[in-house]
Every structure is written in C-alpha cells, then in structure tokens.
C-alpha cells in the first residue's frame, strides 16, 4: 500500500505539473552595425505615402518606423521622430501634386462604390472626402516643435533634391519647391535634406532615392520633349543622378554611420502601369464594330466583336493613330469615364500622357539599369559599411507571389494585397514586406539578427 501511495502521488505530481516546453527568449544581436540612432532618407515610399496621399496612419507605419521598432531590439534608443501631419489633415491626407497649386490638396483614396457615366456601379477607389481647400495648416513649418526628424522621406523628390536648399523655397519661379520638405526643414531656404540628416547624429541610415528620376517621366506617359532634364516629367540626366547619389552616400558615410541603400524597381512590376489591359476595348454589338472599321478604314485597322486593342495617339504612326501593342502600357491615371462613355481609346485615340510606347519603355528600362548599376557600384566601394537592398529584384519576385505566414501577396491592383489604391505605393502590408527586405539584407551584411516584422498584422486593403 505504501508503494502504491508513492506511485499515485508521483503520478498526480506529474499530471498537475503539465509544464509547457517553452523556448528561452531569443537574444538579438547587432552585428557590426550600430542602430542607436537611425535616419531614413528617400521619397514618398519612405514617407509612408499611400492611397494617393500622405496621411497620419501611413506615416506612423511607414517602413522606417517599422524598422525603428525592430532596431529597438538591437540597441536603438527608441527615439524616432516623424513629421506627422496633424489631426485636421489626418481626415484624408495631402497630395499637393494632384493639382498645380500646392495650397490645394486632395484626400486619400478608399475603396467604395461608384456609379459610372454608363450607369454601372463598381467597387473602385474613391476619394475619402472632399478636397482640402480650406485647411493649409500642414504647410506650417514644424521643425521647432517636433524636430529634428528621423524620417526624412519627402514625397516627390528626385536624387538632386537631397542637397538642394531651394526645395523649401516657395517662389513662383522655383520648380524645385516641395511643401513636404518646407514644412519640416530645419532652416527653410538654407537647410537641405542631407544636412538635416546629420541633426539626429545617425549611426545607421537607409537611403532609397532615384525612383522619381525615372518614374516622373514614366507616370506622365513619357510626354517629356527632351531626352533628359530637371523637370518632374523628365528623366534625370545620368551624370546629375550619379553625382547626386555619390554625394549623398559620401556625406552620410562621413557621419560615421553605416547604411542600406535601395535601388529602383522596374515599372512593369508596378500595378499602376500593368492593371489596364491593352485590349480592354470590349465591343459587344456588331454596330460598334462596323462604325470603328469605317472610321479607321484608311489606316487598315480592323476591329471585331470581343476584346480589341485600344486606339492610341502616336505621332510616328501614319495618321497619328494606331492600335496599342500587347507589350505596351496604359497608365492607371487614364480617366475611366472617358473610356466608358466618351469613346477614348476607340473613336478618339488615347492621348500620349496616358500610355507608354515600346520606345519609351525601352528608354525607361535602360535608364533604370544604368541608375541601378551606379547604385551597385557605390555600395561595392564600401562593402563593410553599405548594404544593397535590391528592390528591383524584390518587386520582380512579387509578381510570382510572396507567401507570408499563409497569406499570398501579389502586385495585382486591389486583390493582390500588397499595393495601395493609387497603384504605385504599397499599402502597409506591402511596406512591411519592404521592411523585411531591408532586415534580411542588413542581417546578411552586418551579421545582426534583427527579427522580421509580422506583415499580416498591418491593415491591408479595407473593403466596405
């Protein structure tokens, strides 16, 4: 009986002591880099721009903010300042480039129902609210009260704006004025973005610049009359680009910081360029086919029932019009109402600014390669101080789908889950995937063990 009592009590002890086989808390290490103070430089992708606007929620979860939170596990001080818009502007957001007047802004897009001119209601991006014509408080400079800033992402800048004090100068003749920098500059008209980066005494930086040097041209449909120039619609001259990048990298390294540098994605991997099918002209009635065949008879363009290639304006084509080719691209900015009800793409050709022809695409591709080659060579000069984040390859991989913890992400507009409603900027989950790209490369280059970000916990596309 005595032995039975022992056995029973031991068994109860074991049964009650159903301890969980937990793992020890992991220790993350910083490798050869120092993440104490982190500064991020870049354009709208770095600022957290999404859904066609800069708004507070996007800023709070911009990828540099995500990185800063991860860096806290490897020594970051926890001080990360973003030039947040205030609550009034948080209603929608700001996008001064939506009109030529920086004082007139528009709001962000959300997914909602809209009835088109053809009476068809679809689920489509719609403005969250009316344009913000009254409240321009966002233009007030906030450096004194909220700076210095760790997120120096400025929507709309090209490579040569990083070291240019004119960026904060509001003047009718200054085409380099950018209200996003003007509101956070440490000394408007005298300070530069690169100069402001030094104010946080950075030990680590990320630099992702140059996309607009080619995207400005691409998103405006390649209408620039020059082969290279300094306007938004131009491609930056290659020497200007190289000088600007080299200068930026040198100045940032001179602070003693190490960093990660991102390169430029291909436009064919971005839904803004690939969502509208070249043959979206759907003719359902024979009468429509007959009218178009007659209209273009002299040019020999033949239509049929079903899907047809759109008609586009091409000054090099006979008659100035032709059908778009399968490999050519139509931009997401094309006004849907014109296509649906006013014959754009059929009875009237699609204007130059809404599409890219093969030559324009070749130019963009070659320039992207040249720019990226320069970025790679810069990084290769400092193998122990700089890491290259190959976003060109990453966005290409995204087209095949990336699965994160059971959820699949693709670049498809709206349904793919990785891009926001403007078709160019990622949504927060897309930015989280980008943050993980930085982390993977930083870990590989500097030997750190920074943990990944949980992509799925950020908001995705919100459906009504």
């Amino acid at each position, binding site marked *: 009986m005595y*032995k*039975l009592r022992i*056995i*029973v009590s*031991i*068994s*109860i002890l*074991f*049964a009650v002591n*159903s*301890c*969980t*086989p*937990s*793992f*020890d*808390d*992991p220790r993350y290490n910083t490798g050869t880099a120092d993440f104490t103070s982190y500064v991020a430089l870049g354009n709208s992708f770095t600022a957290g721009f999404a859904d066609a606007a800069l708004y507070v929620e996007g800023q709070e979860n911009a990828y540099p903010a995500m990185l800063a939170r991860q860096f806290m596990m490897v020594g970051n001080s926890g001080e990360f300042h973003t030039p947040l818009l205030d609550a009034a502007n948080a209603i929608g957001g700001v996008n001064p480039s939506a009109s030529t007047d920086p004082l007139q802004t528009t709001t962000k897009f959300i*997914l909602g*129902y809209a009835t088109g001119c053809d009476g068809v209601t679809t*689920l489509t991006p719609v403005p969250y609210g009316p344009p913000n014509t009254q409240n321009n408080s966002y233009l007030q400079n906030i450096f004194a009260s909220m700076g210095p800033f760790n997120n120096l992402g400025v929507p709309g800048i090209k490579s040569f704006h990083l070291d240019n004090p004119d960026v904060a100068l509001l003047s009718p003749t200054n085409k380099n004025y950018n209200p996003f920098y003007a509101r956070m500059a440490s000394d408007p008209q005298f300070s530069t973005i690169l100069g402001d980066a030094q104010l946080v005494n950075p030990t680590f930086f990320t630099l992702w610049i140059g996309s607009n040097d080619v995207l400005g041209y691409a998103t405006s449909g390649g209408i620039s009359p020059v082969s290279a120039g300094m306007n938004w619609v131009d491609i930056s001259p290659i020497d200007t680009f190289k000088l600007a990048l080299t200068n930026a990298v040198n100045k940032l390294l001179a602070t003693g910081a190490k960093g990660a540098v991102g390169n430029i994605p291909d436009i064919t991997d971005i839904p803004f360029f690939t969502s509208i099918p070249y043959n979206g002209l759907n003719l359902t009635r024979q009468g429509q086919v007959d009218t178009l065949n007659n209209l273009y008879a002299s040019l020999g363009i033949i239509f049929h029932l079903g899907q047809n290639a759109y008609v586009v304006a091409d000054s090099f084509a006979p008659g100035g019009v032709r059908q778009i080719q399968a490999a050519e691209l139509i931009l997401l900015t094309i006004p849907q109402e014109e296509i649906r009800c006013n014959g754009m793409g059929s009875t009237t050709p699609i204007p130059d600014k809404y599409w890219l022809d093969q030559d324009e695409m070749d130019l963009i591709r070659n320039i992207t390669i040249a720019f990226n080659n320069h970025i790679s060579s810069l990084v290769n000069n400092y193998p122990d101080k700089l890491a290259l984040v190959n976003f060109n390859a990453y966005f290409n991989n995204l087209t095949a789908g990336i*699965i*994160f*913890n*059971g*959820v699949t992400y693709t670049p498809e507009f709206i349904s793919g*889950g990785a891009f926001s409603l403007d078709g160019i900027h990622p949504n927060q989950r897309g930015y989280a995937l980008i943050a993980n790209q930085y982390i993977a490369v930083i870990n590989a280059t500097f030997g750190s063990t920074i*943990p*990944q*970000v*949980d992509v*799925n*916990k950020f*908001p*995705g*596309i*919100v*459906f*009504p």
Partner: protein
Amino acid sequence: MRKILFTLFSFLPLFSLAGGFQINTQGEKANGMGGSATGIGKDASSVYFNPGSLSLQEKSCIMGGFNFVSPRASFLSPINGNVDAEKVNFTPFYLYGFYKINRFTIGLGVNNPYGMGSSWGDDWEGKYIIQEIKLNTFYIQPTVSYKITDRIGVGAGFVYATGHAFVRKAVPVTGVSTPYGEAELDGNGHGFGFNAGLFFKLSEQATAGLSYRSRVKLNVKDGDATFSGIPSSLSSEFPASAGFNTEINLPSTLSVGLAYQFNDKLMVALDFNLTGWAVYDSLNFEFPDHPDLDSRSGRNYKNAIAARLGGQYKITKKLDFRAGIAFDESPVRDGYLSPELPDANKSILTFGAGYQITESLSADLSFMLENFAERKDVNYETNFSGKYKSTVTVFGIGVNYVF
C-alpha cells in the same frame, strides 16, 4: 532510449501517440508498459491490440477506463520569440468486454484511437493557417475470436468509426471595423474498417502476436462552414454559411509483439508497429455550392514505425508495478510541418501500477510522458517557419472485472 524518465501514464489518446494523430493509450496495463501489448494478450484491451488472444485467455472480462491527456506545445517564431499553444486537455475513454463460449469468444470494444487538438490563440501570427483544430474519433468493434489450438488463437473484428472534426482559422480580408474574418468548419463523418490478429503461445513463458488494424476512411458529408466578419462587398465570395465535404484518411497499423515471463514476478514485452500513414496524402475540402472555396492541401505523410519495450514486476501478490519506454517516428516530412499538428519523433516513458482489489476486480493506473524532439521547419505551402517543441503527459485509470 535517451529518456530514463518513467511516467505512470502511457496513454495518449488524443495527441498523436503512434505518430501523426494516432492515440495509443487504449488500456492502462498496456500503457504502463510503453504500449507493448500485441504479444501479451492477458486482458480485455486485446480486443483492440490483438483480437487473436481473446480465445486463449482464461476468463471472460470487462475492462473500462479513461485517460487524462495534456499536450503542451511551444513555438519559437522568428518574429515574436516564444509562443505557447493554449492549454487543452482531452479525456478519451475505452470499454472492452469479451465472453467465452467454448472455443469461441465474442467481444466488443469502443474506444477513441485517433484524435488531436491544437489551439494557438485568435490573434497569433499563424492565425491565417490555424487558430483551433480538434479531431475526435469513436470506434465500435464487435469482435470474434477462435481458439484454433491450445496454443494458437485467431480473431477479427468489424470496425465502425465516426469522427468529428472542427477547424477554425482567420480569413485575410479587412473590413472597416473588422481587421480579419473568421472561418469555422465543423463536420461529422463515418467509415468502416476491420481489426484482425493472431496470437501464439510459444511456450509456458513466451507468447507472440501479430495484428493488423485496417485503414479507415472517414467520409465527412454536409459539414458546416461558417464565415463571419466578412465585409459586405465580399459576401458573395465568403457566404455566411456553406456545406462542405471532406475525407479524413486514418491509417492502418501492422503490429508484431513478443512477451516473455522470466519468473513468476517479471514479465517483459517488446512491440513493433508499422503505421501506414502514406494514405494521408492531402487534405481537401469541397464546397458543392461554392466551388470557388474548394481547397487542396498537400500533407504527404510517410509510413512510420514505433518500437516499444515494457516490463511488469509483481511487487506483492496484489500489486504489480509497470514501466516502459517507446520510440515513435513521426510521419510528417520536412516542409510539411504545420502548427495544426506540430509532430516530431518522440521518446516515450511510462509507469504503471495494478492492484488486485478482489479476486475478480482489479484497478490500474498509468502515467506516460511523451517528449517530442525539437523540430525546425519551413512549410512549403504557407511559408510559415519556426521551431516547435512539445510534450504530452497522460494520466490513466481503469478497472478490470473477470468472470
């Protein structure tokens, strides 16, 4: 075996005993001895372990009991560090009886040979893969055994099986007030199989057995799938409720066992099992009214072996002490490990005790500790990666009545 820990419980009904989600705690005497029961043939649990031995046993017998199973799992995530699975406990039971009529014996068994359950919390990082899963099975087996000679017995039983499966996971759609949706699948199924065995009395001391429990295909028809938290613009893709069909393939087990009575105090037994898990190739769901929701998911299990060694020592005339060890291979291949069933090769340690209350009535206790090897994997389909570590403890109690 590396583990020298002797647990009193050797029953682990619900949480993958013989690899995968087989439960090998089907009798306390067997449990106490590492589950090495095929060649012993001394109690009514042979209805399950080896029906051939029933006709060679001396007396008719009824036996019943249940086990208290506590699986505990932890996951080391590259994002969030250590995550503990929620604590769930199970109580599978068994009831066996057989009646001797001359050379024939008729018997009946009801038990829960397969089951599993995992719950990881609603908001954890794997919520789009699984939040909660439960599988219960119930087998009923009418059995016949025939004494061919005084040394050879044969037996067979027909198996009718029912099962209940429940799966809950998050749906990656975000609404204005719902960060993600929920999907719940709930279904009952049934299937058939058989259980056959041969038992040999090799000598006064040695006995051996061979048994084969067939595979059972549980057909789940008209299961209930409900989707909630779905934004109204997507309600046509994810209806509030839909019927589904699925099939759960439960494997066969081929066992061979040996038992040797050294003296009137000590008996040792050895068992090998080969479980045909390769039949569990994929898990598919079919939605007859919503084919867009149909899904196929590879599982690609492989056949798995287990080896068991147990001993029973008569401490006093009334009190037996038991101990056993076992090694159980996991049928889950690398690349297929998933938090629904974080399986791994396991080492098992058991303890048991039996007490003769009266001449006819006895009671048994058993305790089993299963230790799963730490296992790291990246799942091919979901890209979910991390390390898993699990243990299961089982406490069992049963009574035996001979007549």
